[in-house]
Each structure stands twice: as C-alpha cells, then as structure tokens.
C-alpha cells in the first residue's frame, strides 16, 4: 500500500501561536442512538456529554450532534477500529464510517490559542474550557475545534479545505497580528 500523507504534509508555522499539521489522523464517524448500550460498548468508553470530548489513552471520542460521535484514533488502526465498532454495534440501527482520508487535523499551541480561534469564528471561544468542543465555522468553512488544555487547541476540517484552514490560521497567528492586551 502507498504511504498515506495528509493534505498539508506535516506543514508547520511559528507565529505567536504555533500551527502544526498533525499528519494522517484516524477519524471514524459513528451515528446511532447515543443513549444505547451498544454505542457505549462500541466506543469502549463513556459517551461524551453534548459539546464535550473525552479521551482514553490515544483514543478520543467527540460529541458531534445528538445522534453522532467522532472517534479519533491513530491512522494505522482506523480501519480495524471501524470494523470492531461495526461488529460491536451488531444489529443496532447505526452507521460507522472511516472518514480519516476526508479530514485534516491541525494543532494550535501557545498562550493565545483562544485569541487565534476567536478571530475566525463566531463561537464564544473565551468561555471554552479544556474538554469542550465546538462545531462552528472558521471564516468561510465549517470546522470543529476543542481545547486539551489552556494552551493547546485542535482543529478538524475537511481535507479539501485544509490549505485554506492552514492559511487562515497562519495569517491570524502571525507575530505582527497579535491583539493589544485589553
């Protein structure tokens, strides 16, 4: 099999916030009744509360909508994990799809990650705490983002707009574009 590469191929930018492409990342969309035991069994951890993301080891599960979750895992095991989930769900009315190759994952690091995101989205980023996730928009495109701690944020967008997202983030994270302290 050929080598998987992400749309940005590991690009990185040093501004007042560091923007880094995370390379190929495993992402599995899971739809079904989130209250069911089958879903809990399939993801192998507690179902996240609305607008939250929960992690266990190198796997995470994000709440996407009242009937949709996004499971994050290493790229190499995505197919295998999706197959396991499908099996665990059995006959429960559900859908599992490996969407790893349709998405891009970008990391933001720095004391002002909230400011960088807030410049691009109408979401109330200042009120977001680590573990909170928002699906919203960044400028003209839909994106999901969450904080793992006060200085690290992750952004998921469609692969087709990965370059656009990276350019947006690097523009607003450019050293000269930092907002004056209020």
């Amino acid at each position, binding site marked *: 099999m050929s080598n998987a590469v992400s749309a940005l191929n590991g690009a990185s930018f040093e501004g007042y916030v560091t923007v880094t492409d995370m390379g190929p990342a495993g992402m599995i969309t899971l739809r079904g009744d989130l209250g069911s035991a089958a879903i809990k069994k399939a993801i192998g951890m507690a179902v996240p509360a*609305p*607008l939250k993301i929960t992690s266990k080891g190198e796997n995470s599960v994000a709440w*996407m*909508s*009242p009937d*949709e979750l996004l499971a994050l895992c290493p790229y190499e095991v995505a197919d295998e994990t999706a197959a396991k989930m499908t099996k665990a769900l059995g006959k429960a009315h559900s859908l599992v799809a490996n969407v790893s190759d349709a998405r891009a994952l970008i990391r933001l690091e720095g004391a002002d990650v909230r400011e960088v995101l807030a410049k691009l989205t*109408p*979401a*109330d980023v200042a009120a977001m705490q680590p573990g909170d996730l*928002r*699906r*919203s*928009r960044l400028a003209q495109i*839909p994106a999901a983002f969450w904080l793992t701690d006060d200085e690290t944020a992750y952004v998921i967008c469609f692969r087709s707009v990965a370059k656009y997202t990276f350019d947006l983030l690097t523009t607003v994270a450019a050293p000269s574009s930092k907002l004056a302290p209020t």
Partner: protein
Amino acid sequence: MLLLRCPYCGVDCDETELSPGGEAHLKRFGPGSEDADFEGYLFQRENPKGVHFERWRHANGCGKWFHAARCTVTLEVFGTYSAQLTEPPQDIKDAITAKRPGWHWREFA
C-alpha cells in the same frame, strides 16, 4: 445580529452558523388536493410585521433543523423548539403572549 439557541445541542448560534429554511409549519398538499390548497402550499407565505415562525438549520454545527419564534421588527427571539412539532409548544406561545398580547399568526394565537 441574530442569535438563536439550537434546541438540540444547546449552543447559542450566530446567524452565520445557520441556514434559513423559510416559513415554519407549512402544511403539505400533494397529488389529489385542491388547486387552491396546492397553490397555497407552494406560494402563499406570511410576511408579518411582528411575530413570525421560521425554520432554521444549525448548518455549521450539529446539522439539525429547528423552529424559531421571533419578532421581525425588533429581532427579539421568543424561543426555539424542535422541528418535529407541527405547532408551537405552549411555553413558546405563552412567552409571545407575555410580550405581544393579542398576537396571531396563521391559525395560531
């Protein structure tokens, strides 16, 4: 700027995160119906100055459709509710009555 709370994910969405879906609570008239009913279903829309009911989709978010009751004059939002309802719930009607006594919209009041 219009802010609507999505009743599914509880997010206060900005207008730019939403897609407008036109008037709410349209009753469909399909094949076999009277021409006048079908015309009404296709073309006749309310254009009120005041209380209005609309459909919105949380497009840049959870992707769900929902209903919103708002005032077209002041942009005041009376509430949002599930897209699965065929008429506004009583608490929304009460909220509107409290602010706009004597309101009516199509067959609702």
